């Protein structure tokens, strides 16, 4: 065995909850701004205004999430996958994107969708059961949620191959060069599709950034079930760079994602980002995490809360005053109320629309079945 390989394999795996020395951080859990030679430049131009708007996004999506949870508990949603704890990973990466970049989310990226400009109602449709997605991905360059774990990694790669075929990589024109970002979880890293996506993306130099939110859990299974080594290192088996960032640090996530997107746009893709974070809540509202994890772990992660640390920075540096924080909370209340209102008034489509969009072109079976359905329904009307 080559000594180098052995040495690498003997690198200690960081303890649970500690991202280890490789993890990029620009803002400590205590709200201290720390410096990093490679990444400072990506946040150097951020104005206090920018940071306040980061804060606003974080608070609003946490509220969106809380409302989703409440709506499920009240029977208005069938299910809700919470993003609690992952706000910085989502806002930080989402804000690093340019409008013409394209996003492939899982079912948990409500926060990314929000910063892409999606109508916040959109995320609710699927979980309310009124559609299986239902928005136009091209409107905000934000694809539909993908539920089948890992499947979207290939879509993102193919899309990015298309971007390259279009010649929209490495031209130096910022309005033209395009990156694709693909979200997935730590559990998804085990799926064949994700690894095939790594192979294809590397083979075709696809301008795609794989953004893995390692929230430490895949339902009840800890990340150690999926990998022996830190997940960002998976990329080195495929010949492209991987980097671990503190996913609860919005500055670091923003910086690292910008860097990687730039690399991809310049033709140096693919790249893998592992955002080291934590799923503070249950997997979804259908889950009961007390069966498989200890609350001490959750408590420990509370100290690394992504919102609190930005709030501390803003307050300490005098970039925001109490009135600002109050105003944002009020905005969040308003936002939540609208969300709730929108949700409960969201209408279920008529039964006969089931056949409308199965095919893009005319299809005799769709017509026949729709007609039979309507006739059947009408027979009840007649009977009454």
């Amino acid at each position, binding site marked *: 065995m080559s000594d180098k390989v052995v040495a690498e394999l003997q690198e200690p795996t960081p303890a649970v909850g500690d991202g280890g020395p490789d993890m990029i951080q620009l803002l400590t859990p205590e709200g201290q701004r720390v410096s990093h030679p490679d990444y400072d430049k990506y946040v150097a131009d951020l104005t206090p205004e920018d940071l306040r708007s980061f804060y606003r996004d974080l608070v609003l999506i946490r509220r969106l999430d809380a409302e989703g949870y409440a709506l499920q508990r009240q029977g208005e949603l069938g299910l809700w996958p919470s993003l609690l704890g992952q706000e910085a990973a989502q806002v930080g990466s989402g804000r690093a994107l340019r409008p013409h970049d394209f996003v492939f989310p899982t079912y948990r990226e409500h926060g990314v969708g929000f910063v892409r400009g999606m109508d916040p109602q959109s995320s609710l449709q699927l979980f309310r*059961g009124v559609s299986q997605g239902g928005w136009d991905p091209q409107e905000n360059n934000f694809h539909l949620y993908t539920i*089948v774990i890992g499947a979207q990694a290939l879509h993102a790669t193919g899309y990015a191959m298309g971007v390259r075929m279009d010649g929209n990589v490495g031209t130096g024109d910022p309005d033209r060069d395009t990156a694709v970002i693909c979200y997935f979880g730590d559990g998804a890293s*085990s799926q*064949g599709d994700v690894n095939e996506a790594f192979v294809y993306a590397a083979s075709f130099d696809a301008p795609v950034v794989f953004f893995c939110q390692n929230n430490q859990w895949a339902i009840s299974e800890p990340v150690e079930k999926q990998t022996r080594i830190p997940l960002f290192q998976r990329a080195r088996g495929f010949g492209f760079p991987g980097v671990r960032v503190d996913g609860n640090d919005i500055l670091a996530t923003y910086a690292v994602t910008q860097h990687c997107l730039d690399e991809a746009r310049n033709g140096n893709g693919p790249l893998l980002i592992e955002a080291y974070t934590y799923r503070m809540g249950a997997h979804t509202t259908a889950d009961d995490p007390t069966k498989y994890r200890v609350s001490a772990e959750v408590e420990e992660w509370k100290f690394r809360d992504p919102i609190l640390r930005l709030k501390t920075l803003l307050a300490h540096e005098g970039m925001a005053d109490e009135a600002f924080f109050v105003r944002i909370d009020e905005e969040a209340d308003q936002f939540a109320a609208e969300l709730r209102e929108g949700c409960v008034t969201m209408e279920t489509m008529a039964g006969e629309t089931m056949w409308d969009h199965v095919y893009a072109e005319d299809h005799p079976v769709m017509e026949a079945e729709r007609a039979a359905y309507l006739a059947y329904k009408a027979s009840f009307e007649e009977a009454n």
Partner: protein
Amino acid sequence: MAGQLEKVTLGKSITNGLRKAMEADPKVVLIGEDIGKLGGVFRITEGLQKDFGEDRVIDSPLAESGIVGTAVGMALRGYRPVCEIQFDGFVYPAFDQIVSQVAKMHARALGAVKIPMVIRIPFGGGIGSPEHHSESPEAYFAHTAGLRVVACSNPEDAHWMIQQAVACDDPVIFFEPKRRYHDRAEYDTTATTAPRGLFEANVLREGTDVTLLGYGPVVKTMLESAAAAEAEGTSIEVIDLRSLSPLPIDTIVESVRKTGRLVVVQEASSFLGMASEISAQVTEQCFYELEAPVIRVAGANIPYPPSRMEEEFLPDLDRILDGVDRALAY
């Protein structure tokens, strides 16, 4: 000795059946996502890892081809693996392993190796879930030679069928009607012999006018439909198919010879679903006895709809009775 009557849910009946199978044979191992501490998302394996250890109740990485493919390897090593697929719509990543390896390895070896493996799949809709959580993929497997495919519909059957499936030397795809997991029924949980073979149909209710046939979650609805029809003077024979492959065609034919009419119910899309095969075979065998064509009451030929529309999609009592009426109209 009098048996011990107990009221048990369908889900718990499978748990108990798995436990008995594991006690009976140390080579029985379970593998799947979240089946350990969590006991699976439906809690079917609850308590089993605690009692049998992590080597016999294996939490797998998140990869279904891996679940089935490694189970094939374990079977080759002498184990009897029982795989859990978390939801119907997540079995497809394992499709290649199932169709090209699980189904064909015994034949490839001219019988020299066996693949005594069970793949458990909670299937069907009606639980208000998002996409991929309510599908009925049974036809894909029933079309595949080399597999056996069964579906349970009630607690007592579930209890026995899972044990029989584990004991079977062939690979068995085992469908569980997820919206019936919480249904309860009383049966003798201490009985030591199964009431019937794994690959037999079960005539649940005798009747003379129409035969009503189905499997899994719709069986309960069929029984309700038959009761409602009786009130209107129609005598319906209800058959729980139980075995989708091999098809217990003799029981079906016997019933159709008596009633002259057959209605087959399934949640799966009608096109190339079980009801179509049954229609073809029954028509072949009962050409002169059939008073009406075989009527199929099935899911539409569309992807499973959003959950708030699923009631419009699923065969319910009205649609079943409508099918019965159509059969009687000939």
